């Protein structure tokens, strides 16, 4: 699993690639926690390269959201592949989070 970051306008775009499962969800939580520490409070998770996510990955995103919310920040998702979309629906993440078709729409929402 790989993470790349990019700044666009006032938002931090975090591109998550590979698989997010029980073997790496804790490292993911730590890496994201370091990234957002004292940093941006508007996050876009670009999941266009995320091939698979298990329940452990769901927990990682929920915990990350809790951290961002504690700093009065906002976190959204974009570019979900069909399988990841299904995982979001089963896990109920599609109800609590905003999901966009592309990065531009997500950034526009955060700027508004």
């Amino acid at each position, binding site marked *: 699993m790989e993470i790349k970051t990019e700044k666009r306008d006032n938002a931090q775009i975090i591109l998550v690639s590979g*698989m997010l499962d*029980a073997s790496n969800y804790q490292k993911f939580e730590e890496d994201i926690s370091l990234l957002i520490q004292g940093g941006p409070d508007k996050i876009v998770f670009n999941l266009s390269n995320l091939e698979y996510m298990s*329940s452990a990955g769901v927990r990682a995103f*929920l915990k990350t959201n*809790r951290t961002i919310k504690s700093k009065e920040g906002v976190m959204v998702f974009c570019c979900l592949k069909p399988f990841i979309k299904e995982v979001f629906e089963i896990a*109920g993440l599609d109800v609590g989070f905003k999901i966009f078709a592309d990065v531009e729409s997500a950034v526009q929402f955060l700027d508004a």
Partner: protein
Amino acid sequence: MIIMARRPPELIYSVDEKPSNVPLFLLGLQHVFIISISLIFPVVIVKTIGGSDADAMFMVSMGMLAAGLTTILQSYGKHGIGSGYLCPSLCGPSYLSSAVMAAQTGGLHLLYGMIFLSGIAESLLSRVITKLRVLFPAEVTGVVVTFVGIAVLPIAFPRFIGYNAETGFINTTDLFIAIVTLAIMISLNLYTKGKIKLYCVLIGMIFGYLLSAMLGILNYSHIERILDAPVLGFPDLSHFGLAFNITLLIPFLIAMICSTLKSIGDITTCQRANDLDWRRPDMKNLSDGILTDGLADVISGLLGTFSQSTSSSNIGLSIGTGATSRYIGYSIGIVLIILSCFPKLAMLFVIMPSPVMGAALLYTVCFMVMAGLQIIMSRMMDIRKTFVVGLSFLVGLSAMTPVFYSNVPEIIRPIFASTLSLATITVILLNLIMRVGIKSSKVLEINPKENNTQKIFDFMKIQGGIWGARPEIITRAMSAINEAVEAVSFTNPDINRMDVKVTFDELNLDADISYKGSPFEVQTSRPSEKLIEEDENAIADLASYMLNRYADKVSSQKKGDLSHIFIHFDH
């Protein structure tokens, strides 16, 4: 009976919808034009044996009557008669070479007798077809359907390009008419909607007739043939009769198998075209459709005409125009039955210009070839299936060079006489040979302390390819098994071995995950976000819930010191 299906949105008239009278008639007429193209087969046979015009007209009229009756029966779809789909009948190309053989050996009565026998054989075969499912998985059916389209090429292409076999030259006037006719059909389909799109083939053919008249392909001699034909015509009883010859049994049985497989492909295509959720052939429906296909030959033999079979071209037409209503089948049947009694009207079809015939055939063949390829690719492929499909295509296409097989023994020559029969026999045999060594179940050993996601995914993808499973089921199974393994690793952190046994047949995919540890709890409700955020162990509950959502059935059991998780998917 058709099982309740989800209507595809692109259909204008789906299987159970009845168009109003005018579209019903025009749509039926459009199909009749395509069906009439196949009436050249009886004419070809009669001319080959030096038969009379009366013989030819009789076979053509009876061909219309047989096609009309069997199209109605095929559309009926109740009490075990017919598939219930718009699956018109016409003179089937599978029998052409064996039919010529029979007519040359013992005259037309022998042809009628052997067709009658083939019909009985196919009707009996329909009763056991569900048990022979292993013989025609998706790759076999798909190859047959593809080659049904390809096999029409020797009839369609020379007519399209105006090829003269005696001179070896192309008639550019014919080619021009064919290109314009085809272009009109395609343009109307692509760029129009509603009724014009529905009748694109009919409109194209009418333009083709007009252009043929303007350019002299259709001339006064054709009009004279229409004027000379009687208004009303009833069967001449001297043409009826059945004869039999045991030496022709093998070629006709081979032709019957090709025709049956083609019909399986055709009816499967109809099922698929009318159900957005289509996953696999409805075997009971197929069985009823094949029975009616067999009865069609029984009727054809008794009436004294060429073998009738489901029409791939017409099914392609119905898909291409979005009108798959079974009521169109009734309209086709009634028009054909009426035409069989009016030689003057029938002559309108008999004089169809060759380039118009070629254009209409090429148009419909496109949809048949694509339907076959889609059936092949609806399942996961592995190296075995690559060889089954690839070799069948190559061997089947080799029949386009008949000189390769000119010294093949007479008794099996019909197999090599057409791309369809050669591809069919090849794919059936290769499928059976390549099944050797395939096991219906496989075990994967894993250590829950390691990262297993990729290992599980690779295992399932390989097995899915070997079994020819549906890709969407394999994706769900991979995810479910991984969730089960992750859940167990959370609740039993000390275990270092789990066995995942996966079993597959055409209808079921099952996983039995066993380990030495505490029993698995199946969660039917999602744990709250708060719980998941605060308690890491809640991941196991979430994993159990997600597993339950991926699978069709989940259960757990403790047997001795082994705990089991049973996961089931309907395939």
